[in-house]
Structure formats: structure tokens, C-alpha cells
């Protein structure tokens, strides 16, 4: 969905992006992380056709952003780190303007506005002036503006700043929902725990270079296999091993005391079948969850200069 090739971007005196190349699959949420000044915002701005690179190319949804910037903007939503709102307009008009300026047909604007407002829970604020909103409400309006035209690609730079814990949780489910509907997202944030909730991939920048780009293990990541952590109430290694061996889809399993780490091939339905299989086998399962590679682990390992810690499912 997004292809970046040999991207070079310079500010006078600084090379912000240095030969950056990567490809992002559709229906994924990529956590874009890196220290301050790594080039994250510059990269997002180049993808959004806001800044022209010195060299290289960016293709979004099959469109070269330098050749067709406006067509690209129809298909793309972007929430900048420092954004502004039209304080004198009502929330409804802010959203209607964004929808119209992104070529949403006139007859569909009202429905688009209502849907976007509903998604970020500001439907009851539609007649309020943007200038009267609280910081969290403004953030939600800004997110609604970025998705009102149903973009195929959504770029978010620090989307959770200003949100309270409940709103952050809502944001997490919103982003996951958007991805489930087919959207491809890149989210830049310093709050790694927040990215943990919804990211399927991680892209780490340092000094303008990509130092890591990988899928996070898990069914959401679209990987072939997923690591599952199973915990039993009582130790019953033999019964557990027997049950796992008899289940089609288990690639590998390691049992340590009450805990087993299982590499399972398949989607969420396969996980459900495995859990039911274990319970029907008479095992007293007390915990059953994906054992994901944590964004924080990958990031810290890279920032310390080493390789990321091995996945726990090996």
C-alpha cells in the first residue's frame, strides 16, 4: 500500500532522511518510532506529499505522490503533531469542509460527517464551535477530520497526545476498527505502551535511517504463525504435550512447568479451536493469550545497538 524507495530528504545543514526504503502492506498498523530528530515527522510529511524529497520516491495506493499529490490526498488522511482547527466554525462545519475539500460527493457529506463524529464520540458536539472544545475533544475532532473522507491510508503523528486514559483506549479500538475495515495506518508516537495495543508492525528510524522494520508476532500482524502462551492451574506436562501434539496447526511447543509457549499456524479462529481442544482434553487452562513481541523490546534492543530479543515462542 505504501512503497518508499531510496528516500533522501535534507534540510539545510541536516540530512533528515538518508536512503530510506521500506514497503508497508495493506490493512496493517505500523508503529513508527525513533528518538527525537530521527526523521519520523519528515518521513510522514514526505509520504503525505507535503514536502518534496531531494531524491527517491514514495508511492501510496499505487500513486507516485510527487506526480499526483492531489489524487494522493484524496486517498490519504494525515493528523499532524501540531495541527490547527477553525475555532470559529462549528464541529459540523469543520468536518463538512474537510469532507468537501477531499472530494466527498456533496450528497454524501452529511452522512460522512455523522459517521466520523460517531466514530470518535463527538456526535453530541456537532453544533459546538471548535474553539469551545476541550483539548481532548479537539484531538478527537482532528482525528475525525483525518478520517471523514474514508482514506485508504491514515498517517497519525502523536495521535494520543492530549487524550485521557479512557479516550486513549477508545483511540486504540478506533484504529483497530479502521484497520479491520481495510485502512492502512502509520502511527508515530513516543508512548510505546499505547502502540503496543494496536500495532501490527514496527518501523524504527534513527538518524534518518531505517534500523528495523518487522511485523510484530500475532494473528493481527498477518503472519503465518502466532505465539500463544498457555498456563494451567495444575502441572500436567504429559497431558498438555499430548493435547498439543494432537492438534493440527501446532508448529512447535515448549513446556516449562505450568506454562507452555505454542507456535500456532492460523488465524484467531485457530486460536479459538486450540483453546476449546485443550479444555475438551480435560486440561484446566487458567490463561491463554497471544505472546506478542513487544514494541518496547524491539525498540530498546535497537536503540542499545543490539538485535531485538528473541521471540518467546522459539
Amino acid at each position, binding site marked *: 500500500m505504501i512503497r518508499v524507495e531510496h528516500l533522501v530528504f*535534507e*534540510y*539545510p*545543514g*541536516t*540530512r*533528515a532522511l*538518508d536512503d530510506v526504503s521500506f514497503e508497508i502492506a495493506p490493512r496493517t498498523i505500523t508503529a513508527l518510532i525513533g528518538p527525537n530528530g530521527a*526523521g519520523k515527522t519528515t518521513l510522514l510529511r514526505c509520504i*503525505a*506529499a*507535503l514536502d*518534496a524529497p*531531494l*531524491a527517491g520516491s514514495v508511492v501510496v495506493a499505487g500513486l507516485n505522490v*510527487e*506526480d499526483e*499529490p*492531489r*489524487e494522493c*490526498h*484524496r486517498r*490519504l488522511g*494525515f493528523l*499532524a503533531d*501540531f*495541527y*490547527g*482547527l*477553525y*475555532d*470559529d*466554525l462549528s464541529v459540523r*462545519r469543520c468536518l463538512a*469542509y*474537510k469532507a*468537501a*475539500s*477531499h*472530494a466527498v460527493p*456533496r450528497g454524501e457529506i452529511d452522512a460522512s460527517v455523522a459517521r466520523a463524529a460517531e466514530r470518535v464520540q463527538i456526535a453530541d458536539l456537532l453544533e459546538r464551535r471548535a474553539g469551545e472544545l476541550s483539548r481532548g475533544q479537539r484531538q478527537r475532532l482532528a482525528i475525525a*477530520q483525518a478520517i471523514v473522507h474514508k482514506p485508504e491510508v491514515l498517517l497519525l503523528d502523536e495521535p494520543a497526545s492530549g487524550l485521557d486514559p479512557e479516550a486513549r483506549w477508545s483511540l486504540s479500538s478506533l484504529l483497530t476498527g479502521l484497520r479491520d475495515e481495510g485502512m492502512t495506518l502509520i502511527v508515530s508516537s513516543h508512548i510505546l505502551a499505547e502502540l503496543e495495543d494496536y500495532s501490527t508492525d514496527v518501523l524504527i528510524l534513527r*538518524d*534518518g535511517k531505517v534500523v528495523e522494520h518487522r511485523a510484530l508476532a500475532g494473528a493481527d500482524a498477518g503472519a503465518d504463525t502466532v505465539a500463544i502462551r498457555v498456563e494451567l492451574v495444575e502441572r500436567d506436562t504429559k497431558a498438555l504435550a499430548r493435547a498439543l501434539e494432537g492438534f493440527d496447526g501446532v508448529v512447535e511447543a515448549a513446556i516449562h512447568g505450568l506454562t507452555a509457549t505454542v507456535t500456532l499456524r492460523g488465524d484467531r479462529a485457530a486460536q479459538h479451536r486450540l483453546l476449546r481442544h485443550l479444555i475438551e482434553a480435560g486440561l484446566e487452562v487458567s490463561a491463554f493469550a497471544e505472546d506478542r513481541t513487544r514494541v518496547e523490546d524491539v525498540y530498546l534492543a535497537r536503540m542499545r545497538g543490539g538485535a531485538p530479543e528473541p521471540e518467546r515462542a522459539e
Partner: protein
Amino acid sequence: MIGNPEFRRNLWLELTPQRLVVMPLVLAAIFAVIYLGESGVAKWSGDATRYGGLATAALVVYLALALLWGGRQAAGAITDEIRDRTWDGQRLSALGSWSMAWGKLFGSTVFTWYGALLALAVYAASASIQAPPPTVTREVIVLLAQGLLCQATALLASLLYLRHKAPTRKPNAVLFHLAGLAAVALLWWTTDSFDTRIRHWPFTATVSRDGFELVATVAFAAWAVIGVWRLMRAELQFRTLPWLWFLFLVFLAAYASFIAGARPDFYYGPAAALFAVTYFLALVEPKDVVGLRRLLRRAGAGQVRGFFEVLPLSLLTYVVTALGLASLFLFDRADLAPPGSGVYGPALVLSGFLFMSRDLAILLALNLGRNPRRADVAAIVYWVVLYALVPLLLRSLHQSDLAALFRPDDRVSGLLSPLVQALLTFAWVVWRWRSAGRAVGLAKAAGTGQIPA
């Protein structure tokens, strides 16, 4: 028209029901006072009749609304967006450059036009009692064009500022508004004292001052709107070739030649106009090492279209000026000087061109330095020193011959000094360019994006 989202957004903000009612009420009150009472404006008009006073008052109100208020609104159409951090959001829209350009130009000023057009209607009605309809019609068109010229130039100036990418986040719209007012004043200055006797090739026709003012004002207003559109294209990341700018330069040179044919004080007008535009653009356009590298990279790759897309307009203007000067020598236009002055015009103009080359090289070299933030101001200081302080110092040391080396000269032998100065400063540019290239190489080798100071 309402289908343009940018225009509609401005309508929502500018044309509130309260404002729609208040504006005509206030104007009606003003005009009633003028018409019914012995006001000062009626006396200023120098016209004993009440209609004359009313026309003058309506004209003043129109100019205040269209040029002062409307110009300020247009100047802030972009800068207010930058201040409120909404400009990037607009650049991310799918609107075309023309929709964005006219949506901003007429949207930001729609309320002032609402009042200005009411005032203009009063002016036309009251003036037509004393003047024939064709005269009033011409005046109305000129006034409309002046309003548009002021507003479009103010918006154009703010877009030029965006290209400059100055470090400040809060651009001052007053400067852009002044640019709009200056455009109207400059045009008025060139047309107001226009002599109908055209003395020089290639213009031989007799032209009335009124007709010339009408055509010139409408033409420059149209060029200003075209300029807004072209700069908006660049701002919205459209790839744009500079052929319209080239046409504007041709138009400007022709216009200046036309004036030169009529006014003795405008002999060097065409060259001066091109010089002025080159200096102005060189100052306001970005001159950083990144832009130049992009330009040279495309030139090296043989990307002709890509090269012209990123070619600075100041460089294009410089080349057009050079070609224009070459044609002077080609046709040996020795008459390019006031009759009887004894000045060899082509040499004088070429000397000025070489000095301009030196000045632009200084500007570029300073911008390629380690701290380009104040390079433009520094270049202006250099120019003042070279044009004023050094000659003054030499004269005070009784070295008038040496002082003459620092100003344009009409002798062919006088070309040597500016040529040497231009070559030396060009060598300085090359040295700065190579230093910048080495800095990037060091940064890459060190594996960090920070280019060492």
C-alpha cells in the same frame, strides 16, 4: 461558485447574518450624513453639489474597503492559516490550485467586497449625474481592477514568503498588505503622468492616458491573479514549468519599453524593471544548498522538464535579462540613453548587469555558508558597503578614480572592474558550494544526519 469548499468555508466565516445587515446600515448612515448634511467630505471634493460630495465619499469608502481592509484580509489569507496551524491541513486537501487560489482570494475578502461594491454602486450612481456613462464605466472598471490588484498582490507576497521558508512562524501580514498597496501606487505612478506622445521604436501609436490606465490596471490585476494561481500550484506540490513567468517578463519588459517611449525619465525602464525583479526574487526565493543540489542533480541526469520545474525564477529572470542585453548589442542600440546626454547606453546597462551578477553571487555565497539564516540581510549590508561606503571612503582619500570602479559606467573600458568583481565573487560561490558538498560527505561517513559546522 458555492461548490468551491474553500470559498464556502470563507463564506461561513465572513458573511454572518449580523454582518450582512450591519454593513449596508453603516454605509447608508455614512452616505446619508454626506448627502443630507454639510460634511467635511463634501468640502474636500471641491464640488459644490451634494452629488459630488457623495461620489467623493463613496470613492473614499470604496478605497478603504477594497484596498485597506480587503488588502489586509487577502494578506492574512495564508498567514492566518500558518499562525493557526491550519495551512498544512489545507495543503493536504484534494482541491486544485485554481480552486484554492480563487477560494482564498475572493473568499477572504468577500465581506469587504460586499461593502465595497455597495459603495461603488453609490459612486457610479452619483458620479454619472456629472460625468458621461462611458467615463464612469471606465472609472468603475479601473477601481475594481485596483482593488483586485492590491488584494491579489498581497496574497501573492504571502505566497512568496512561504517559498522563502523564513524561520519565523508568525509572518507579519502588514508587510504583504503594503506590497499590495505598493503595487497599486507603482502602477498609478507609471500611468498617471503618462505622456500620449510615443517617441521611440517600436511604439508609435498615440494612446490616451485614460485608456492606457484602464488596460494597464486590468492587465496587471490579471497577472497578479495568475501569479497567485502559479504560486499556489507550487505550494500544493504541483509540478510547474515557468513558462508563464517567462511570458510575464516579456510583458513587463514591453510595458516598461512602452513607458520609456513616452517618458524621458524612463529611458532605462526596461532594464531597470528586469534588474529590480531579479534582485527582488533573488532575495525572496530560497537559495539553500538543498535546492541547488536538487537543481544540479536534475541537470546532471538530463531531466530537462524536472530541471525547469525546480529552476529558481530569479535565475530565469537573470538569464532573460542577459538575453535582453545581448540583443541590445546585437542591434547596437546606442540610442538607449536620453538624447544629448552623451551616454553610451548599452555599456552602461551591461555594466549594471555585471554589478548585479556580482551582487547575486555575494547573496548566493552567503546563503551557502554555515549559518544562512541571516544571509540575505548580510548580503544587503555587503551591497551597501560596496555601493556607498567604499566609494565614499576612497573619495575622502582623494581616490576618485578608484571609487569609480564601484559604480556602473558607460565606457567600454569601465566594464573590466565589474567583470573582475563578478568573477571573483563567482569563485567564492564555487568554493562555498564545494565546502557544503564536503560537509554532506563527512556527515554521511560519520553515519549521522548532522552536517558538521
